[in-house]
């Protein structure tokens, strides 16, 4: 499935900003199941100094420095990607979840990279409360994918998507007690639960298609950046991406930008400004299937 992504972030400042530095995670990374056909990022005003690179997790990053006074700043990222995530394995064939936890804890050639996602991170520490919430889905010896799918479905069913009730500072505990939030909150909740059970889980940043295919309901989290959870199933089966906001297995309605331990590692656009007083931010995202032949 070929998609075209168009993502515009704009800042309007009350007073001109004299100097600013921004770090963007806005270009999709290439993956075996995600071919990046084209990708580009441009800004208005143009950056005085721009650099591109690859972060510790292998994500594509861009630095943008502006040193002329500017009353507004707009970053546009555009990409064409061909995605088709493979079907997850037969869940009965995946190992028991405790075996996966044990493999991760001991690291070694097949597990050391996954093990990074076992540990606390600032926004998604291992959470005893979240683990307790998840525990009914993780009875002893159950195949890990069966448990993960059930947890994913439960978060989708039992939590309400509502914008504006949470912030970056909202903790997993608050989300658990409110039972509402946005995709970022659900992703952090699920990650905190899995880490609490000793399973590696990572935060995936990306997009979900704006308009649903005919006959299906519109997905939650479209029109904006989206986030979901990468879950590890052990050395043999690797990672599976689950979207608890929509109760989905990620297959061909999502485009991956990159991943990290939590939102902070893959913030789409963060920056430091000098001056500017108050600012207003607006974000526009479109993810559309590319017309045939393009």
């Amino acid at each position, binding site marked *: 499935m070929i998609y075209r992504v168009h993502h515009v972030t704009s800042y309007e400042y009350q007073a001109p900003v004299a100097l600013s530095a921004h*770090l963007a995670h806005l270009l999709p990374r290439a993956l075996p199941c995600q071919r990046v056909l084209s990708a580009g990022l441009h800004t208005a005003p143009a950056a005085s100094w721009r650099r591109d690179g690859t972060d510790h997790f292998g994500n594509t990053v861009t630095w943008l420095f502006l040193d002329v006074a500017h009353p507004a700043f707009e970053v546009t990222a555009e990409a064409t990607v061909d995605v088709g995530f493979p079907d997850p394995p037969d869940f009965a064939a995946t190992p028991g979840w405790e075996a996966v936890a044990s493999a991760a804890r001991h690291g070694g050639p097949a597990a050391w990279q996954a093990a990074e996602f076992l540990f606390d991170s600032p926004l998604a520490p291992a959470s005893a409360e979240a683990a307790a919430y998840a525990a009914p889905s993780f009875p002893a010896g159950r195949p890990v994918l069966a448990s993960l799918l059930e947890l994913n479905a439960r978060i989708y069913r039992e939590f309400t998507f509502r*914008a504006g009730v949470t912030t970056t500072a909202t903790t997993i505990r608050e989300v658990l007690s409110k039972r509402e939030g946005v995709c970022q909150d659900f992703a952090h909740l699920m990650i905190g639960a899995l880490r609490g059970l000793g399973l590696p889980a990572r935060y995936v940043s990306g997009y979900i298609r704006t308009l649903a295919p005919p006959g299906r309901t519109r997905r939650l989290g479209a029109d904006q950046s989206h986030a979901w959870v990468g879950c590890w199933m052990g050395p043999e089966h690797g990672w599976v991406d689950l979207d608890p906001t929509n109760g989905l297995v990620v297959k061909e309605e999502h485009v991956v930008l990159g991943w990290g331990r939590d939102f902070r590692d893959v913030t789409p656009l963060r920056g430091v400004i000098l001056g500017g007083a108050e600012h207003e931010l607006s974000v526009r995202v479109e993810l559309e299937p590319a017309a045939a032949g393009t």
Partner: protein
Amino acid sequence: MALDEMVDGKGGLRPHWRSLLGILTSLGRPVLVERAQRLERIATEEGVSALLPGAPPDPWRFDPIPVLLKQAEFARLASGLAQRARLLEAVLGDLYGPQRLLAEGVLPPALVYANPGFLRPCRTSSGHTSSGHTASGQATPDRPRSGLLQFYAADLVRGFDGAWRVLADRTGWPNGLAHALENRRRLGRILPEIFASHLLCPLEHFTEVWQDALQRLVPHADGDPGGVALLTPGHADSDWFGHVLLARELSCALVEGGDLTVRGGRLFLKTLRGLQPIGVLLRGEPGSRIDPLELAPDAAGVPGLLEAARDGGVHIVNHPGTGLVEAPAFAAFLPALARRLLGEELELPGVETHWLADSAPGGPAARDAVLRDPGAWLVRPALDGAAPALAPATLPEAARQSLLARIAAAGEKYVARSPVMASAAPCLEGGELVPRPLVIRLFLTHAGGAWRAMQGGLGCALADGAAAWPVAAPGLAKDIWVLAEDPLAIAGPPAHRIPALAIRRTAGDLPSRVADNFFWLGRYLERLEGAARLLRAALARLARPSPAPHELAELDVLTACLTQAGVLNAEVVAGLSHLGLSEALLRAAAPWGAIHAMIGRVSRMTGLLRDRVTGEMHTVMARGLRELEDALEQIRPREDAKARETASGAMSRVLVFAATVAGLAAENMVRGGGRLFLDLGRRVERAQAVADELACALELPGADHQPALVEHGLRLALELRDSVITYRSRYSGVLQPAPALDLMLADPGNPRGLAFQLVTAGTLLHEIAGIQDAALPGIAATLLAGAEAMVRDVQAAPDQARAATLLPPRLRALRDDMADLSDLVSRRYFALLPTARSVGIEGGTPALLGAA
């Protein structure tokens, strides 16, 4: 029983201590006591607490008895530490590079990935297009990184078997080097006798070698190669004083995050002249706090610094991520890592350490041992090199149980060691030598392709019973002497030519922040002096038993002036009796009153400028400020003659202090840079005070319908301007408005008058700006013309006194213009100083996150 450094097991002196002990004995106890006191005095006069009265004293105290090490013994330590530095550099190079140690299972993932010292942005690579990296999993640079570690220190203890062992590796930012150098110098001042009979390896070679190595690191990519600067978190940091001393030792700039900016991939210092390139940045801050763009978003730091460093625009020493290997749990892996990475055995063992993690070799067994017999162990957080050790044996029962429960539940968070019985070194206490447990810190730098150790170091004597995990923490510091056996073995640094410096004489290189601080030091000093003068004049009038009517009117004027100056509160003063007024004045002078607050502001600025004034000037100011505080302590805010006298005396001391500082600045500071701004601040403040006081004086109660009263107001104004004698010598006893106003407003020869301030301010602004910028000096000239016009108008008026009573609005307008001029100076020279804010990551609304 611990080993004694000075005495052998049979009660005899070790041979290399004989000479020192002989000298100490011949000096005798009273002399030693007196020298120790002199050392304490030096510490107060030159230490950090002298800079910031009320601030906690320098955590390092200094003991005058050195620790003696034989050169051969020291050489073994230096070689062992050089090997350790090579090893840690190789470990860092791998973990911030290909991470083979993790992939091959040599190190467990938790040691790195759960370690707060592992800074992921330091593994980011940049400068290539986004299509070139691997398509699966993590970025895997194929070659280990190098050059991450440049400066390294280790804490060591000597056990009962006589062998030194490493307690802790300091790879982030080892502190204490400057203290070691300073201690050696102080010791030379107070106990010169003991140096005479010892052949000592000098410390200075180390700083020369280091300076040279730093020069070599300066990138020479294009044009101006850039200078060396030391980044400090500022004077509130406990290490700040060490940074001040070190910057002086290395002759480099001491800067704060706000002084620096990244433009086009290069690092610059913001100075009055503009941006000056920095090629090497010594990092006196934790690596996680140096770049809010990629690391802690709430930190001060310099946005873009990491990317500038990746691009080669600046070299950071040490690399920000080097704190990673300070985690105590690394100690358990070092012998295996040495064999693996260097193919060598560790020359210098560490104190045996067990990581209690399931995944660590021997971890579960060690954990069981700790849980079985907790009293026999010391426990520390596994991944935090700065956290103190806990001795379960000394913990209260509840705390011990809770610690043991945490160890049982999450062993990977702790390491355990058997307590080390550190060797004892003699310390001077009350004239006697008392043995104290000793930890030493030795320093190494990578220069000319090899690791070199400073031939000396910082000893740290611990309080008795503090054998609990003695990591050298600030405490009682000791000089470490390496006794030379072959004087010819002392080699100089390799030569490295620095390009000849261009001659500079302007204020231009001064950081804008420092200029700003000097400007405000000048203003605060003048404000303090003015307030003291007014207060003393008011107290003198209250002292008379029955004041004459004109004295009462003068008191009203003084009250108005004191209110204007912020010494008295207008609402409190309104309707006060004389008794009440007297009490209000005493309260303003007493501790925690307005004068005290002004002294506090001067102290704060003095502290911020510690590294910008000469030692002598600083000592005088610090001592003066302390004495002023003591003088204020004597004032009891009770209404009686004695209290007024004490307060009046204290105010006179303030005036003496202000005059001393002004004299020192004139004689002692280079005419340029900071001095210009200090002086400008004083002129701006004093010009405003003249205008204000004169306006109040001319508004003497009743003067508007009885102009003759103006004479009293002018007399008072002359007194406040310290100009009575000058006036009398010029005009004998006849007081007329125009001549008096001329002396105070238009005569540029009167240093307390307005014209002098404006002329001087104009000259200063001209000197600061150079010839390109005549706008600011022009404003000062215009204000001067306005002051001269006031005098001319009064002179020409048929009734001079009445004309003088019309001046206050013009004087106040002039004062406001002066305030505007001060604003313009701020905007012109200090505008590079707004504070940075993070966007996109912190903030209230989810909309800010760009996430649904």
